[in-house]
């Protein structure tokens, strides 16, 4: 079963900041490596800071753009992993080890079965 693990991180934990300024910096590498060695990693990426986002809407045929993320929340989406594990419990175990779980929040979502 494939799951998306969404890393919600504090604004100062973003990947485009210098690694030494990110308190979780060195932990991400170790976590990614653990996922790879377990053979469960399907994909993933780190994202630039939320302030670099542009949000697009089309309302009644008219484009509306604004600077910044879709939702202004305390933690922002900082990256994601796509993993393939047998069940939700295993996915939750991996989510708990995610550095964002203790400094921000981690959302686990199953991919829709097609």
């Amino acid at each position, binding site marked *: 079963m494939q799951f998306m693990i969404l890393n919600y991180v504090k604004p100062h934990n973003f990947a485009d900041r210098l690694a030494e300024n990110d308190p979780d910096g060195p*932990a991400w590498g*170790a976590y990614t490596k653990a996922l790879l060695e377990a053979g469960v990693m399907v994909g993933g990426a780190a994202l630039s800071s939320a302030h670099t986002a542009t949000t697009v809407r089309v309302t009644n045929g008219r484009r509306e753009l604004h600077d910044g993320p879709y939702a202004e929340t305390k933690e922002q989406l900082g990256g994601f992993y796509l993993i393939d594990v047998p069940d939700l419990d295993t996915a939750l175990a991996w989510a708990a080890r995610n550095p964002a779980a203790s400094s921000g929040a981690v959302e686990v979502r199953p991919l829709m079965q097609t």
Partner: protein
Amino acid sequence: MQDPTRNEAERVARLSYGKLVAILAVRSRDIAAAEDALGEALLRAISEWGRSGVPANPEAWLVQVARRIDADRWRRTVSAARGSEQWLLLEDERMSGSAFDLQDDRLRLMLACAHPAIDPEMHTPLMLQVVLGIDARRIASAFLVAPSTMGQRLSRAKARIAGAGLRFELPDRSVLADRIDAVLAAIYTVYTLGWDLAFVDADRSADLVEEAIWLVRLISDLAPDHPDAFALLALVLFAEARRGARRAPGNGAFIPLDEQDPARWNHTMLAEAESALRHAGRLGAIGRFGYEAAIQAVHVARRSTGTTDWLAIEHLYRGLLSVSPTIGAHIGHAAALAEIGDVGSALERLESLPIERTAMHQPYWVARAHLLNLNGNRNAAREALSKAIGLTEDPAIRQFLLERRDRLVTD
């Protein structure tokens, strides 16, 4: 504005929830109904206590009202023989007045939760929810299961108690002997839940720890000839005595056992733990908790001897492996072997463990890194530490391991 009546009702609910459910469910055997009735009684308490004041014995008041609610419900909804029998039992109970034996009821409910007809995996979660009033969400967190799944499993287990009519036997010796292990395991889980919360929610943590210690004392009173009960009491007290010393006073950094300052341990509690362990030893064959507590006892003896007797610890781990060969016991044993100078066979033992059990097990990689480093194999040690860091949940421990990895490089 705070409503004093509501506060009082909430206080009673928080402190006595499990006890009251136990009292209510003992005869009816229907935990879900007992919880419903208690919930309604608490609502009535908020309005009635507001008018007429908080009664002298709030718990007795709640039990009486909840029983009446439960009896009314049966009268209204249940016909046929089974219902009337149930109703008679309830009536009988109601007439017997407000005197109740708290400790027996509570233990009886715990033993019912450990009934062999209930999925053994649900014994502990059931006891946590029914007897201790811990909510399904927190239990799900402890077992790392989705909260909705845990909620469903709990409901199913409760329905099974009601449906199969599992009896809330008096804890006679035969039942106690069969189920005490499940009860002790649940108490141990309550303790570890409290331990995990220590640096997150200090009040809740103190409640759970207190509850665990209280329950293990209670069960050692009821099973005075059961060595495991006293061994668990010792184990819990040993761990609790070292709680404060696990984190640095200023920044909350993690401090491993061998670097803890013995002056920061609770010496009164350690003395009580030692006496409980001696008592367990006198009672008979030493089990899993006994070996674990004895290993703790050797560690804390450092407060008077200034050293750690690793030879004794290695010996005790061999004993632990003979009764409970868990992955944790194997790792502890390997670490002890290394401490007494046998790093080679310590590493060999670690490597002989089945890979499917160790690959995702964080303590294995911490121990392996330590042993590889002792063996002079820096690079492999660093690799193993990285793996451990990737598998760590606790941020303070992660930070500790990251610093240890940095030191490995710069040495």
